[in-house]
């Protein structure tokens, strides 16, 4: 086995700034790397590019995934959405009615392998966004409905072992989702996950996490990484080889 240029660079990267910078990579083109598309509507949505930058950076540092730590804002009827198989919809108010073409494209996006993380930034039980998003789901998949995701879902074990879906707040102890076949292409978080990840322009956290503070923020980052990993590997962690091993080691029941 030869000591190649690539391995030399890897060692150098780890030795000099391995914890501070993403590792060197020759992924086949920047466009092949993972990023996030933020859905942007006329109202009711907001964009948090720094939250994605932070999450994807953590993803690169923590996992073997190659990513481009940035996001792009797109309308749901923009064909460019299909260059970004992972999308997010962060709501802060009632969504305006979406055109039939946009609904049709978004539905197609999700059926053919796209993943949509929906985050209610209000963290409130009576949010206006929640009602309008549920109405959108009924248009996207008339025969399906949002339902709570069970605690043994792959999302809770794709990379980290998690007990609860914490965000900026800890209001709802479960995620919701729409499952098609064996995958869940829409995951809905009502605890303002991206609020916990977001940063201000000066680099400081945009909001405090309550009630758990920094521990809660750390758990939110872990949830964000798990969601990205789920978008990539879907139910991989439900494969028998993994379940048996984790059960044998007492890490899951």
């Amino acid at each position, binding site marked *: 086995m030869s000591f190649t240029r690539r391995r030399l660079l890897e060692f150098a990267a780890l030795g000099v700034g391995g914890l501070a910078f993403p590792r060197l990579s020759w992924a*086949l083109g920047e466009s092949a790397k993972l990023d996030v598309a933020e859905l942007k509507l006329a109202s009711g949505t907001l964009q948090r590019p720094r939250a994605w930058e932070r999450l994807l950076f953590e993803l690169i540092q923590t996992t073997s*995934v190659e990513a481009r730590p940035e996001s792009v804002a797109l309308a749901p009827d923009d064909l460019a*959405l299909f260059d970004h198989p992972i999308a997010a919809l962060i709501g802060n108010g009632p969504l305006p009615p979406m055109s039939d073409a946009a609904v049709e494209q978004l539905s197609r996006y999700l059926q053919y*392998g796209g993943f949509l993380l929906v985050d209610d930034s209000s963290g409130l039980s009576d949010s206006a966004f929640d009602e309008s998003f549920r109405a959108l789901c009924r248009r996207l998949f008339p025969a399906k409905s949002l339902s709570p995701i069970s605690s043994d879902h792959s999302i809770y074990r794709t990379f980290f072992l998690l007990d609860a879906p914490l965000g900026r707040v800890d209001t709802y102890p479960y995620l919701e989702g729409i499952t098609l076949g064996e995958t869940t292409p829409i995951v809905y978080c009502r605890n303002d996950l991206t609020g916990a990840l977001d940063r201000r322009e000066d680099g400081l956290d945009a909001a405090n996490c309550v009630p758990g503070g920094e521990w809660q923020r750390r758990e939110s980052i*872990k949830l964000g990484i798990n969601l990205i990993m789920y978008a990539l590997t879907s139910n991989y962690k439900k494969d028998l080889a993994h379940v048996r091993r984790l059960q044998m080691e007492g890490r899951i029941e």
Partner: protein
Amino acid sequence: MTFPSSLFGLTENGVLEWTATSEWILVAVALAVFTLGVSWWGSRGVRHRVASVGLLVPALLAMLWAVAGPVWVEGSGREVPGRTVVLVDNSASMSLVEDGQQRGEAALELLDSLGLEQAERFLFDSELKAWTTPDWTGGETDLGVALRAVRERYAGEKLRSVVVMTDGIDRGSLREQWMTEGTLTSPTVGGPLTVYSIGEQALIEDTAIREVRTGGFAFIRAPFTMTVTVVGDQAGADVPVTLSREGRLVARKRAVLDEQGSAELEFEVTPTRAGRFTYEVSIPVGPNDAVPANNTESVVVRVVRDRMRVLQVCGSPSLDQKFLRLLLKQDPAIDLVSFFILRTERDIPSGYGTEELSLIAFPYERLFTEDLESFDLVILQNFDYAPYFRWSADALLGNIADYVKGGGSLVMIGGDRSFDLGEYAGTPVEEVLPVKLGVQGEAIDLEPISPVVTEAGSRHPITRLLPDATENLALWERIAPLDGINRSRGAASGAAVLLEHPSLKDAQGRALPVVAVRAIGAGRSMAIMGDGSWRWSFTEAARGMGNQAYLRFWKNALRWLVGEESRVTLEGAMDNVRLGTAARLIGRVRDVGFDAQADVPVSLVVTDGTDKLNLEGTTGVDGEVRFEFTPPRAGAWRATMQVEGQRGAKAETVFAVTNRDPELEEVRADPGFLQALAQATDGLFVAMGEQATPLEDATATRKIADRNETPLWNHPFIPLVMALFASGSWWVRRRGGGR
């Protein structure tokens, strides 16, 4: 009107029949009318005409009578004694020798001693046959059919005696009923039945394989049970049983015969390859074994895939991995085992404790040693082996290469950890890849490209996404571009490039491969020199074209890789061929589009490992070629058909040639059945060696019908009438001045 038979001195118990054909009668009538006309016009004066014609009419009627050939037929009958019918078993089991004498010879001696020369004799095996010199070669003895044929032949007639000579090894419904129900429905025989038992149960030595049960097919890598029944004449005998597959020993066991002289044992076999295989079960042949041929039994087992077992190893979760897993996971015909490297040694110092993670150790050693053979296909997707295989790298990479050469399938998919970047250059894995590694300089090219379909790619089933060639090319031209490629030094020897780079060339000036395939040893491999094939799914869906292109590409690839996509096939008409009879094989040759190829010369080699038969043929318009030949020896035979001038275009099949005679599956005489048959018909059973004359029904008679024919056309009265009246007519006409 009744015929006045008394005029001719005949009885009234008869009927008049005409022996001349209607054509002759019509000719005679026409001649008579003509003669009358001549006579009429040849006479002068009305009085003479009437007299002349009037006299001529009786003469012509007499002539017509003579021509019509009337015959008076009278029937009569007489009573004679009823018939004696003798049925002698001519089946192969009658050729067996008991106590120094062949059973058949014993039957003929008995027949002579009974003095039944006047009897009506028949042979029988599966049916009743006319008597001829017995050759003791018939099969599938069915005494019930023979008795039924006798009854139908002599329907309505009482037979004086029915004599049967047989060893009782009946394979028809009569004995089956007796063996399963213990009783016999009395067959209608037509006369008193006497059954002479030829042979005794204890007088023959034979150990045989009665039956081998397999179910006919098995699933690859799933154990199936082969149940063998051994029978013999010595209770408690310890019989070694050998199972082999086309000459290679598989297992040995011992069978201990029970009190009924039977033993059943099971072999558990786990096939590792799909296809058709001949298994042979055999036991030793003893010095006095009556039927050595039944000591061996060959069965053909078809081994099929229940599900394609795929190992997907990925160096990093990625969009390419995501879409491939979705495809593989959604296919119920695929049993997918995935291992994704979620964290490398470089990611470890990231501040999270191991107890927080759901990661498990990558079982690479087990996967690439003991488990490797269990997979139909291994996908190395942007996987760099070095950080994991470490000091075992040479051995594990060697295992992968051996796996491919031995019939496995391998796909390597590009990315920043694959091909040269995965350090596969110079390893055993490179030897089985369709591309040459060891690139000098940049190992990847990041320019997005639309790959170009090569001539081979336009025909190959993997890249033939649409049936029409033009539409297929158009699809590839508009399909989403890849995000760059892993460079190579070009296609390996024997590889086919299906998609190539539009501009980058190797050192020989040939376009760099983007997708290439190779058949090596018994296995196949494929290289996809990029990690952007997921766009063929998602970007196509964005355009409203669905993901059919991606699905077809991968499904075609999977089928080709595991060898299910075969354009050349060879099938046998039968799995088992009797020695001495012709084996028939049908070969089919199709092109990559699976259209029949006509006028293609092919050669066929048929071998049992010792003998070799060489045949040649040419496909017809249906793409089929038929071979017929007679294998010279019993055993497992493998036939391989090669399409001339097309390397690798071949197919094979197997068949067993057996010299087992179904009639000799059982060799011990069954006097018990014959005794039961005699009882059921109130007949007489005569055991071997006993003397007894056949039962007779003295009252049985039959009537012999006689037929007495008296010709009427030659009665002396006829020419007399003709001469008298014709002369009178002539005389009257002349007297009247006529001619």
